[in-house]
């Protein structure tokens, strides 16, 4: 039986690591839930941002906290461009799945072309910092990640709940035609949201550069678990995405500490399947 310290430590690092799931799920959940576009290239965009952070950090010695100021707006613009394609060709849900899959493949090749397939590691002194609280250690970088994810998720939630634009978006998501007949300009809002989703991928990318492994094929490594998180957190619900991310992160971590680390990959889908058995209309 694992000790209390081990369990507590596993829980802490799991919840914090889950912040990354939540952050990645955030943008995906918004575009899927509110625009009915399944954006498989979300991960590729995040990795593009991660590689850009890496490049700016290693080649030009720009601190990631500064490069994020350039990368996130750039990703926002990419999101707008991507949405222009969706809008121009009236892309529906299934088509969006296929097109963004192809986008992701193209981006993967492009990343490999410039940065090669070799592993990249952005060494910063942040990566190993941690705070000691009692018997537990709290990694600083993951803590910042979770705070950022929390602020973004909460801010987005408030934005959707409290502002005219947010409510109009939710109304459009439910019934675009009716909302349009009430004067909601769905198109403009959709551009805004697509840009925002890509910008969130940019934020996630900055943290990926600092925390995770950079290799082109890693684009696909997050797909399954983050998709599960998006559904568990309910589509279009930013706070749900974050909490679901933390829940899955914590469950994986506990599974690693108590059972075997090899069980971690099945945790997210087991949770999802149990959830869907319990409530088929979940999401």
């Amino acid at each position: 039986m694992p000790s209390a310290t081990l369990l507590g430590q596993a829980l802490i690092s799991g919840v914090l690591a889950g912040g990354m799931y939540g952050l990645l799920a955030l943008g995906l959940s918004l575009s899927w839930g509110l625009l009915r576009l399944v954006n498989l290239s979300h991960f590729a965009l995040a990795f593009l941002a991660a590689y850009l952070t890496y490049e700016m950090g290693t080649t030009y010695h720009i601190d990631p906290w500064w490069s994020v100021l350039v990368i996130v707006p750039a990703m926002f613009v990419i999101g707008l461009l991507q949405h222009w394609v969706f809008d121009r060709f009236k892309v529906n849900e299934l088509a969006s799945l296929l097109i963004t899959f192809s986008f992701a493949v193209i981006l993967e090749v492009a990343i490999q072309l410039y940065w090669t397939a070799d592993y990249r590691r952005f060494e910063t002194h942040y990566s190993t910092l941690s705070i000691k609280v009692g018997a537990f250690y709290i990694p600083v970088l993951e803590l910042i990640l979770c705070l950022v994810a929390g602020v973004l998720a909460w801010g987005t939630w408030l934005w959707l709940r409290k502002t005219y634009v947010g409510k109009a978006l939710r109304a459009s998501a439910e019934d675009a035609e009716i909302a349009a007949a009430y004067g909601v300009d769905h198109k403009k809002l959709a551009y805004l949201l697509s840009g925002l989703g890509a910008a969130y991928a940019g934020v996630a990318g900055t943290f990926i550069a600092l925390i995770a492994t950079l290799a082109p094929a890693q684009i696909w490594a997050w797909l399954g678990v983050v998709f599960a998180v998006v559904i568990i957190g309910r589509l279009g619900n930013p706070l749900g995405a974050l909490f679901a991310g933390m829940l899955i992160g914590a469950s994986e971590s506990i599974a690693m500490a108590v059972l075997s680390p090899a069980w971690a990959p099945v945790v997210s889908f087991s949770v999802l399947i149990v959830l869907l058995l319990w409530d088929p209309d979940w999401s």
Partner: protein
Amino acid sequence: MTSAKEALTRRTRWRWAETVFWLAAFGALLLPPGKFLILNEIAILALFALSLDLILGYAGIVSLGHAAFLGVGAYSAGLLAKHVTGDPLAGLALAIGVSTILGFCTSFLVLRGSDLTRLMVTLGVALVLGELANALPQYTGGADGLQGVVMAPLLGRFDFDLFGRTAYAYSLTTLFVLALLARRIVGSPFGLSLSAIRCNQLRARALGVPVGKRLVAAYTLAAAYAGAAGALLAQTTAFVSLDVFDFHRSADVLLVLIIGGAGWLYGGIAGAAAFKLLQDGIASLTPQYWQFWIGLFLVVFVLVGRERLFGGLRKLLVRR
């Protein structure tokens, strides 16, 4: 009454183009060796896409994890050949049986909830099965793949030759038989009720169609077909790897079906031929960056060719 019957028979009547197509496909067996490898791959992919067509094109269920059944079929056939008997038909039967059971069991999970949750559950089932195969290397060979699959001659007479003529003949015949069967099924009242469900589930229910049961049956049937494709894959390549459960496989077969057009059975076959030939052509031109060109082609294709191809699909997916 007669007109309804006529309409039914018109749907199932042979067209000359079909005869020409199958004659050409079987005629390819007379080609000199060197093409059977890719022809065999096309036949298997076509069967896999045909199976997806049964649920996507006819029942309107989008699956992101159809590779689950391909994989289960492949491992069943591979393990049978390795441990019990190398008889191809026994393996094919076992694969169909196992994937049918899996399809039936998972159908209840998949058919609960909305289109969106379906995407996730199908994806999840394939991922979990992939993890399971990876977690049991003593049976599946894990990441190294299943070694030592040795096939006995087909029908006890035809050896699997070096150039793959037998393999192609075997895969093509299986494809032919199952396509004929599928043709009968989709033209039958059962198939028509599926189309009705796809167009409007509520109306179909109001007309007394047992929607749930029909969808379970369709999903199970598609699983069986995918299992058969898996068996062909395992047997004609004498090898199975974890890649059979890969997400890329599920995504590729969806693309294949979209290229060929869903909902007319031959779409999968046409798409498989186009996809494989394209892949083969580009990959030999530029081995490192072929994926880029395929990706670009698909984006353009789905965007530009979409209107023609997605007319029927849009109805399935636009949520009301």
